């Protein structure tokens, strides 16, 4: 088990959110979409220019810019 930032995750890698370091509007938007500690996620892929990133959360697909993914700490197997 290793803790990394979401930006560092590779395509198709899975993990579990452990912490969201953002507060205010960004933090709220991220959490409102169900990205709360304990939620499993999987990186689905990245846009052609490597930003934003698309991830699978619960049963839907969400996109975030890399600079926003920097606030999300994920625990990955390895």
């Amino acid at each position, binding site marked *: 088990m290793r803790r990394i930032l979401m930006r560092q995750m590779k395509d198709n890698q899975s993990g579990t959110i452990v912490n969201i370091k953002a*507060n205010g509007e960004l933090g709220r938007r991220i959490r409102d979409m169900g990205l709360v500690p304990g939620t499993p996620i999987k990186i689905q*892929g990245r846009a052609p220019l490597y930003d934003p990133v698309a991830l699978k959360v619960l049963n839907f697909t969400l996109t975030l*810019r890399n600079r926003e993914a920097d606030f999300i700490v994920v625990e990955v197997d390895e």
Partner: protein
Amino acid sequence: MSKTPVIALAGNPNSGKTTLFNSLTGARQHVGNYPGVTVEKKEGIYSADGVRIRIVDLPGTYSLTAYSLEEVVTRDFVVNEKPDLVIDIVDASNLERNLYLAVQFLELGAPLCIALNMVDVAEARGIEIDMDRLSRHLGVPVVPTVARTGRGKRALMETAVKAMAHKGQAPLRISYGDDLDGAISEMEKEILKNAFLTQTYPPRWIALKYLENDQQILSKGRAAHPEVSKHLEQQVRKVSDHLMATTGNAPEALIADQRYGYIYSILKQGVVVHKKARDRLYHSDRIDKVLTHRVVGPLVMVLVIFGLYHFTFTYSKTPIAWVEYLFAWIQDMVQAFMPEGMLKSLVISGVIDGVGGVLSFVPLLLMMFFGIAVLEDSGYLARIAFMLDRVFSLFGLHGSSVMAYIVSGGIAGGCAVPGVMATRTLRSPKERLATLLTAPFMNCGAKLPVFALLIAAFFKENESVFMFAITLVAWAGALLVAKLLRVTVIRGAPTPFVMELPPYRWPMLKGLLIHTWERTWQYIKKAGTVILAISILLWAMMSFPRLPEDRGTSPGFEKKAASTSEPLPFQEDPSPSGQALPEARRAQRALRHSIAGRIGVALEGISRLAGFDWRVNIALIGGFAAKEVVVSTLGTAYSLGETDVQDSTPLSEKLAESPGWRPLTALSLLIFTMFYAPCFITVISISREAGSWKWGAFSILFNTTFAFLLAAALFQIGSWLGY
């Protein structure tokens, strides 16, 4: 007669809310705006089995914060208008996230009924939901529906009617953990004791909003009861400092986490059973493997955008021609049967040209709205935003900005009016404003005749290079100005790009048609009246005051004179130019004598800096009506009589040999035409979409100043270099 009961429809975007609304109300819809904001308010009437219910379609939201207009509008409606029932449309295949909104309605104490929508999709995904159990845990009725087929609609409305009968649901109380619960109950006591905003909101909810640092409630509280508010804020600060120190998160974050915790705890109690692995790929994911692929994705996107463009602008040509033909015919009728005089000229050039101008856009708008609705409803528009966001965010815009740019003429030949209206799909307010203010820089179809004239006159050898360069310059200008605006007047951090990529779905024809017609009708209704008024104003500016010899003549003489001459620059007449020179000269003098002419002459002192004489100035003033008018007005100003916008060869020859013109002048005018004030139809659209006349005025002043500085710099530097 008793008041018609009101049901509000709420739910996440893409939950099928609009489909359900269309299915409940049919075409009996009314679209307006919430007072003072640009958020759309849709209403309709449901009637069946002798009940009549007013249905309000609230904006799609994920939450009820004060961060976005949609969310504020939603909760204000629920709190202030007190609908008899809120139906929350919940996507059954995404229960966790959708219930997050439902829980917030319950905390607000709203009378709620849950429509568990898309149960067919959930079933296919192996998600089994025990609805009775869910209903018991939440304390509200839950009805399964499939909005696309109409399944469950009747049962839903029957349940809704029953639910409306017994009102007065106590607000839900969720436990937020020891630290927060302690603070909440203390604050609640204080709120109750002072009757602090309690006539509007439940006390515990107020305490929660204070803890969430909700700006709307904070400012209401400060206004109503500054002392109590101050004390509450102190309490919030205390618990907030404590939480930041121990967990590193603000209360707001923990509240959101706990709400999800509450939802998970309910779902775990046998409400949801997943029969299939959750991380398997759905159809949508497979399609995305191709459509957002690093190489294939952008290629397909270019094809789709080009296809939309082609569809919109090619297929609207014929109906536009019909509308124009119809108005030309009406004009001919007036020409033939109305007595000569100023009134006739007003009717022809002011009224018919004005109304015709408004209506000739309608086929274009219908096609464009239809095309964009297909992209939006199918889910592809979100992918376009996803793929292009990296580029557009560099300039302070959003991936979705591309649609507005393309439609406005990002591929030369578009139109800024539908382009500006296409920004509605953008949900980030600052990015949206920057997009709609810069989209008119693109080369719309009306600017092309002006460019064609100038290029034919001075740069004939390099025609194709020039046309391509013009497109590049427009893009560069729009993006750079967007960046400039985003660091000055529309300053502010980028709106988070936390966006859902909805599953691909087949758009529903009924929804597309309703959506398309609704948008177009709004344009006709609201823009129509203003455009008519401005069209008449512009006509007057270019017709008054009249030449003394025209004014002083006897009516009989005037009749004779007017029937042989061409008194107005706006008037369409295919007669070969340069034929009737005395009349053409007269038209030139009349134009110079008019208000517009005088303004043009007065401005010559400044406009010389960019190389423009009074003739060009008048033409540019005329171009405010529509950019192609620059060509016809220039024709009149050069005494060529009527100039055909489509074939301006005599004019371009005349310009090429005029002593006042050289290639640099043409280049300067080209740049100015590209960037100066949008035509007034666009200005009105900007004002409407931005929600204030201020932005319409801004686009006139800012764009003209910007264009003039560019043109003048170009002309001065070019002259200095000896061109």
